[in-house]
């Protein structure tokens, strides 16, 4: 790793414009890295298939990868009377997740900006957020159903809360952690309060915001699974519920894998954004 850091830093001293020189190297390195990351999951699936074929893992407990692929194919091509097709369930779940996640993240960052910049706001708001944060989402869901019914609202809200807390905690820490010497610099340079927030505070908190984003992706997906298994009539969670009543563990596996793919995809998107937004950091080269 240190070798490729050196290479890219050297490239930075060249005369060509920065966009032209950094990219090819960085992308090649990144792709090679990407393939490497696939190696261990692929090996794990291979081992699983071997154990299933050898009869070590009974099909009644855990379906083989091949059987799961077959089930997935069936779920995609045929419409089940209770939960429709797999892609339909996925679309419903992804929609719920997108709404809850984006709202949760936006609210968390706004809250963190307010509490991060003002001691008074911190004293007023932070204890409430910290108290709510320690309530298990699974425990809050029955109340949400009582308050908001069994429609989309309680499900969106539970995902929203799942995204909000890790994001808030990280964004707050990020804002508080911005180098006070840079704030002082802003003062010397005569920056307005707005300029200070947009030029110093928020960009300075960005590394932590991204860390929060990645945690939020995971915890909001967890919240989605929880939210969809109670009183849902569509979505992946509902599919799991239905399959559970008929002991169809292959269908449960398909739904879980789709959840996992959804999480990996979101994490990958966050990482790509992170690499772009934090290009200034030395340790992000390569």
């Amino acid at each position: 790793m240190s070798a490729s850091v050196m290479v890219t830093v050297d490239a930075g001293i060249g005369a060509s414009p920065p966009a032209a020189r950094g990219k090819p190297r960085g992308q090649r390195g990144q792709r090679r890295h990407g393939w490497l990351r696939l190696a261990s999951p692929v090996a794990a699936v291979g081992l699983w298939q071997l154990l299933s074929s050898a009869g070590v893992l009974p099909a009644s407990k855990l379906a083989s990868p091949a059987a799961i692929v077959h089930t997935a194919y069936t779920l995609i091509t045929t419409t089940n009377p209770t939960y429709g097709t797999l892609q339909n369930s996925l679309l419903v779940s992804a929609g719920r997740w997108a709404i809850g996640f984006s709202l949760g993240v936006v609210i968390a960052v706004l809250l963190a900006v307010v509490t991060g910049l003002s001691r008074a706001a911190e004293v007023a708001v932070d204890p409430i957020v910290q108290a709510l944060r320690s309530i298990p989402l699974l425990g809050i869901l029955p109340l949400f159903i009582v308050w908001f019914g069994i429609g989309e609202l309680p499900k969106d809200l539970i995902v929203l809360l799942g995204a909000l807390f890790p994001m808030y905690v990280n964004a707050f820490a990020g804002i508080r952690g911005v180098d006070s010497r840079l704030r002082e610099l802003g003062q010397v340079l005569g920056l307005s309060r707005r300029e200070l927030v947009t030029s110093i505070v928020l960009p300075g908190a960005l590394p932590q915001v991204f860390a929060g984003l990645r945690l939020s992706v995971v915890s909001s997906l967890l919240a989605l699974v929880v939210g969809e298994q109670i009183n849902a009539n569509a979505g992946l969670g509902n599919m799991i519920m239905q399959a559970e009543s008929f002991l169809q563990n292959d269908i449960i596996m398909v739904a879980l894998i789709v959840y996992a793919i959804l999480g990996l995809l979101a994490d990958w998107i966050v990482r790509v954004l992170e690499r772009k937004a934090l290009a200034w950091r030395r340790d992000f080269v390569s």
Partner: protein
Amino acid sequence: MAPRLRQLIPANSPERALVTPPGSASASASAAGGPAASVRGLTRRFGDRVVLDRLDLDIAPGEFVAMIGRSGSGKSTLLRALAGLDRGVTGTLAVPGQVAVAFQEPRLVPWKKVVSNVTLGLRVPDADSVARSALAEVGLAGRVSAWPLTLSGGEAQRASLARALVRQPSLLLLDEPFSALDALTRISMHRLVLRLWEHHKPAVLLVTHDVDEALALADRVLVLGDGRITHAAAIDVPRPRDRDHPAQVALRVRLLTELGVPGAATS
């Protein structure tokens, strides 16, 4: 950029420092040829400790003043007060024109490219080309769109100087800006600072603990001790200065004695 005038509460007042917003009076004050900075009875306490003790100081327009002192002598506190960063001082303090600061650490904003660091907070038409020519002046024309973290220590400090200079300060505050640089880089930075000073002619207050640096650069050297100016010496040796000029050698001995290290000047 608007010039600033700070008028503080007299030292015996229990009230904290008061900052008056820039007004038209301040512009005429600097135009009238008054001092670039004027300090009277400046006092700063941290708890029971008196860091600045009724300090008086005038800096003439275009004058290069170096302030030396042991660590803890209050030199950085004075500089921070002049920069408007310390609201806990009492006394009067008037800086009629634009102030710019180059800090000990260059304090480049790491997520802004070099040129954007220079234009940060700069409110002039065509700020970008102003910044580019300032960077060219400090020899950084080729690093305009580099990330600050890829700069060497000397390059970063030059970018910091460019950022200070584009504000066309009437008072330039240098807070030990060369202390973290290697000896060779420091020498070339001294030359650069002199060249920039001769070209732009701001009044300069250089805070340093390096006697030789003060001797090489300043019109006037002040020694700060126990919160007061304990010694002041004018230097009229023409620049670039010979380190072994008899007057310089004598002054070095004198200054080191003032700093409490007599006999250390034999090189």
